[in-house]
């Protein structure tokens, strides 16, 4: 049962809320308590832009149990326009046509399910534009 753990990440997974350091403007996603650059402790909340580029990717053919019915699927590291990098699936992907540097946009999709009776877990995936 991952309800509370899931609910805590909603602002990040649904709305891409990040923290921006008041001292050095470093953006952290997910938000942090300590700035990794200047060790500052004051932040403001910002929303990341949902477009970016595909830095690298793989096609997972052997997934963990939870994702085993969805293989093969592509997962990549995307650099968003704000400079933040995230790991996410590439949805509706043409697996033969993926390439480094492709422009992607984030969309809202179902990421996983907590079994047959548990909660549904949503979040961002990337689609190649």
């Amino acid at each position, binding site marked *: 049962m991952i309800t509370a753990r899931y609910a805590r990440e909603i602002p990040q997974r649904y*709305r891409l809320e990040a923290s921006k350091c008041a001292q050095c403007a470093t953006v952290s996603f997910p938000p942090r308590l300590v700035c990794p650059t200047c060790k500052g402790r004051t932040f403001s909340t910002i929303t990341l832009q949902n477009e970016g580029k595909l830095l690298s990717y793989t096609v997972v053919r052997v997934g963990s149990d939870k994702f085993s*019915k*969805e293989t093969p699927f592509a997962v990549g590291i995307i650099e968003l326009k704000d400079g933040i990098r995230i790991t996410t699936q590439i949805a*509706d992907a043409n697996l033969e046509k993926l390439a480094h540097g492709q422009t992607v946009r984030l*969309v*809202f*999709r179902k990421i996983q399910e907590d079994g047959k009776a548990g909660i549904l877990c*949503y979040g961002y*995936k990337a689609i190649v534009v």
Partner: protein
Amino acid sequence: MVGIVGYGAYVPRYRIKAEVIAKQWGADPEAVTRGLSLVEKTVPGQDEDTITISVAAAQYALRRAGIDPKEIGAVYVGSESHPYAVKPSATILIDALGIGPHVHVASYEFACKAGSEAMYVAYSHVKAGEMKYAMGIGADTSQGAPGDALEYTASAGGAAFIMGRERLVAEILFTHSYTSDTPDFWRREGENYPRHGGRFTGDPAYFRHIVGAGKALLEKSKMAPADFKFAVFHMPNGKFPQEVGKRLGFTKDQMEAGWIVPWMGNTYSGSSPCGLAAILDVAKPGDLIFMVSFGSGAGSDGFIYRVTDEIVKVQDRAPKLRQMLDSDKVYLDYGQYAKYRRKIKLNE
């Protein structure tokens, strides 16, 4: 005047052809395609459901409306395939779109007219002066029982409409609802698939209620079918809406823009709402639109819209329905379709 401030629709990329389903069950592909006037239908991806479709449609509606999401006072999603039996689909949507938490949310169900219902209630709240904006969405990832006639047509998609009073792209001039206890199609609690009364779903159900609401609307508005540029009705297949349009006095030309069913299938609660979205994508200022939905059980919600000058400013702000319907399509074979739609018994 109250009406639509922004609209958006979403169509998934996956398709399956009616002939592929026909071949699977040993039916004549030619006869099926001809009989239903339907070529293919949309299929939701494994990571898509009524909630993700609603979010996508709502995002496009917000883009067109150009409003602050926080000003929306209510969000209603009407569907026959809400992912949760208990937990409204819009609870996820409002957090995904930054509309919450000061907002009213509910899920609607009424077979295929749950979408138009959500639209009607959203419109009513704004009309009553309760709130500045309200959003009504019709979206579905409806299931057809394997081998059943409905398997050819049950598809996925949705449309969202933000109702308000300012900068309307389409005014809502009249509405009328017509309901009765007509058990033409239903699903009991706990059952996987709905059941239907075969031909009983025709005249006593679909036709009676659409004509009932349609005639009342025409009387109320003192308008005639010829006054309208566009007409759209619930589309369970290609044939029914053309027939009911004829019975009400509308022509094929008037129905053309909204007649998306041959390539989209029946998106249940998304059916006439998506048809309306397709119409708004091409409508011009001053156009009158006649819309009547139908939900089994049974009832119809009718609307008369008048398109305003604002429409030309917003049409291009988000993807158009026909564009989504016609491009980047990925065709599935029956096995892939059965896997995506979870018709295969897994070892769980």
